[in-house]
């Protein structure tokens, strides 16, 4: 009897875990989407910066080498 009860508990617990996983997967990952948006905007508006303009988005991963190139520009080309 005890064994049957513990099996039931295990089953319910497993059910919670599976539900949690599904829930995680269907939610829109807002923070990750923001990062992707920033990366795309940075690329699309890059021509702007080459023309001597806009400040670049900063919240990006460190492996973006374009930032290094931009940071090496002399200050006078930036407003």
């Amino acid at each position, binding site marked *: 009897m005890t064994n049957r009860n513990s099996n039931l508990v295990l089953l319910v617990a497993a059910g919670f875990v*599976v539900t949690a*996983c599904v829930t995680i997967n269907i939610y*829109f990952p807002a923070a990750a989407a923001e990062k*992707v948006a920033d990366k795309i905007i940075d690329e699309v508006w890059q021509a*702007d910066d080459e*023309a001597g303009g806009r400040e670049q988005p900063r919240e990006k991963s460190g492996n973006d080498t374009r930032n290094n190139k931009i940071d090496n520009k002399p200050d006078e080309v930036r407003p």
Partner: protein
Amino acid sequence: MTLISLGFFLCISLASAVDFKASSPAVTQLRQNMKQRHSQLIPFYDSGAVGLTRDGLIVLRDSNTVPLSGRQSVNILVTAENQDRNALYREIALANNHPEWESDIRSTFAQRWIKWARPGWWYQQENGSWQKK
């Protein structure tokens, strides 16, 4: 107990595997198109003729600042840009196998375009009114 531990482990693995993709041939092509078009749009953003809308698009908000001869070309630019932006949001949603995320992606982009807009550019606020950055 082992089963529960395994379940949690699986759950954590799945959660960490949830990432946001933005790479597909269509997305790459759209990014390229928009990048090339942007340099032509800059003067119109600067003059305030074109503004960034709250729904992640652009619009010719003040045609008076554009000479009559140039209005048609601005309209063509704005239409093409909006087609690409709409397609970009849709394609990113599809790249993630979540077509229903399109509106969330659109609103995320809408906020980020405005956040990174250059000072002097016009954008639409949440209530629909226009604001100079």
